[in-house]
């Protein structure tokens, strides 16, 4: 029976489920044991599973990520916690040079079943150095899978899939969503590469992922009041991406708006726009619109932070533009 849980509880539940299911699953990261995790995802797990499976580390992302890659190569299934994904910059050499490539270098003989998870994106006033959306960065490299669930159920289901995957999965949690609630299934792994239709509609497709999905749903409500029926697609999995879902929706609506929190250049929205023009060109009635964050390092001040990220009005206006309706 599905129960109402928070995004945080859903993640913890998935990790516990996998720790119980498979002895090779281990957790590694800063402050995840004694302290219970900065995001409280791993509360009490040290007591339950012991220090061999819940490993507190020094402040050395490159070191413990490298260690986790080694464990994975040797048959364990580590889940690495980045206190925030911003700290993964320190481990990028290990992630890109080893985690993403060892399987390739070894001709498929050595797998790297590794999950690197942590909060991604902004919206919680962590300022410029602690506010990055790293999906397009990690999504660029062959050998990595990148997912960004928006709902508690997807957080759990995709974590189950991530742990069971034999490749390195970059698991981007939305820091701003840890406290949000939703129905969560018991044991329902959600496959990668499958988008979720968060709302059905026929006039325009709003495409997003992570915490921008909620923004798109609000924008869809506003548009509905104006007689515009928007479809909202939650990509969930960014690499692999569900191209068919995009194409199918645009074949129906003929218009698309891609919404991302990250900066506009080289972003997921650009990739979405490219896929649509490539595979659904003959169905388009207007160029694909992108709604993105402002081209500045994330500001700290609440008012400036709000101004720097996409808002509902921008999404509504972009939708009206692709429908050739005048702006209000």
């Amino acid at each position, binding site marked *: 029976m599905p129960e109402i849980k928070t995004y945080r509880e859903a993640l913890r539940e998935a990790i516990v489920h996998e720790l119980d299911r498979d002895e090779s699953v281990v957790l590694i990261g800063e402050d995840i044991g004694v302290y219970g995790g900065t995001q409280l995802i791993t509360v009490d797990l040290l007591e339950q599973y012991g220090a061999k499976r819940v490993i507190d580390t020094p402040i050395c992302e490159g070191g413990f990520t490298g260690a986790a890659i080694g464990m994975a190569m040797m048959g364990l299934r580590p889940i690495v916690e980045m206190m925030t994904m911003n700290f993964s910059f320190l481990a990028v050499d290990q992630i890109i040079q080893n985690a993403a490539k060892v399987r390739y270098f070894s001709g498929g003989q050595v797998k790297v079943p590794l999950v690197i998870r942590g909060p991604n994106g902004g919206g919680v006033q962590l300022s410029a150095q602690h506010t990055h959306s790293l999906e397009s960065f990690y999504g660029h490299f062959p050998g990595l899978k990148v997912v960004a669930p928006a709902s508690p159920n997807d957080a759990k289901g995709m974590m189950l899939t991530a742990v069971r995957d034999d490749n390195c999965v970059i698991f981007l949690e939305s820091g701003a969503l840890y406290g949000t609630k939703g129905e969560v299934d018991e044991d329902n792994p959600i496959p990668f590469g499958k988008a979720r239709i968060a709302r059905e509609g026929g006039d325009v497709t709003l495409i997003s992922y992570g915490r921008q999905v909620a923004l798109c749903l609000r924008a869809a409500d506003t548009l509905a009041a104006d007689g515009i029926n928007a479809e909202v697609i939650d990509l969930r999995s960014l690499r692999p991406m569900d191209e068919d879902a995009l194409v199918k929706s645009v074949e129906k609506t003929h218009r698309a708006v891609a919404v991302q929190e990250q900066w506009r250049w080289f972003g997921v929205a650009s990739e979405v726009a490219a896929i649509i023009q490539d595979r659904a060109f003959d169905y*388009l009635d*207007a160029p694909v619109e992108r709604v993105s964050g402002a081209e500045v390092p994330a500001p700290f001040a609440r008012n400036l932070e709000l101004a720097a990220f996409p808002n509902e009005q921008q999404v509504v206006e972009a939708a009206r533009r692709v429908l*050739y309706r005048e702006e209000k």
Partner: protein
Amino acid sequence: MPEVIMPKMGDAMEAGTLGTWLKSEGDEVEVGDVLAEIETDKTTMELTAEDAGILQEIIAGEGDNVPVGGAIAVIVGEGEEAPPRREAKQAEDGARGDGADETPAATVTEAEAPEKQEGKAPGDEEGGPSPAEGPADGRVRASPIVRRLAGEHNIDLSGIRGTGPAGRIVERDVRTALETDGGPVEERPADSATAGPAPTSAPGIELKPLSRMQRVVGERMQQSWQQVPHHYATVGVHVDDLLALRKLLNAGLEEDGIKLSINDFVMKACAVALRKFPKLNSLWTSEGIEWHATVDLAMAVALEDGLITPVIKDVANKTLSGISIAAKELASRAREGKLEPHEFQGGTFTVSNMGMYGVESFTAIVNPPSVAIVAVSSLIRRPGFDAEDNVVPQNTMKLTIGSDHRVVNGTENALYLAEVKRLLQRPTLLTV
């Protein structure tokens, strides 16, 4: 800054002629005010203002032929700044000296519309997509889905006005066109009706240019005669019983101001007979023969310089008096040139009556895309034989059906005409 453009008033309308201006430059106009009269192919329509303000500039003069979507005038709303005057802008363009797109300053022609679009400041677009008068560079701008739909429905995009940015034709424009046209836009060879030898310029001649209506009627008749293989059949109908019934009915209807004509009976009989021969009530389309369940009967009405066919809807199910009222009303407005396009389009069958001119018999040309037309001739009073072979005076009227032989076979023509004849000779059947 709202621009007044030439509206598309009918399926085949590509351009309209500005008749009379009813407002002058500088006049204040309210939404709905009649600005000018527009002469289209077949009728004269009133052009009403869609925006309130000052009529800042009249672009099209009386008698100018303006393509659909082309600019006619500019209305400046309250608080809006007046645009640079046309002449001033041209001077500016000339001063730029690039020479490539110079336009003779004195002519106000349709070629200028795109030029004007090009001259717009970038800021002009900010108020959202403004209906543009045409593509900036003569290219048809259309979104991919529009091109796809155009291919599927055989639509000529050059006849559609784009409402997207820079005149881009967007999906809603095609959907609107499909809805109003109900099908593919008819392709017409340009000016085919005017092809002919050059004027002789002999002394004593007077050269009269074709009116819009002559041009359109000419093109359509030429198209029909060249493309539709015609098949004809004629019957003589004894109408003494019909005349007696008509006299009886009209005596009773007089106080209601209704007077049934013989043509009302003929139209009713033609429509009722189509129930048994529905194939004749059809349209020849690019996809096949489109059968219609309802008889929307086009009635040819002669005008001073042409012909128009107002349509009476669902004639088979109308009473004789209903048909009579509709026919009189449509014919009178047709003669005044006041028919709306929807009132003379969409006929599924045609009746043409020359009974008032003493014509013994005539053939008519099929009115495409419908596939059959009945020509009604005059009553002729002649000696004939009654049931006992006595020679008696008889009133006879000839009906000639002309059909599109691609759709209707000779036998079907004959059988249909026999049914019309039977109904007219037993006219009480038309009253039930």
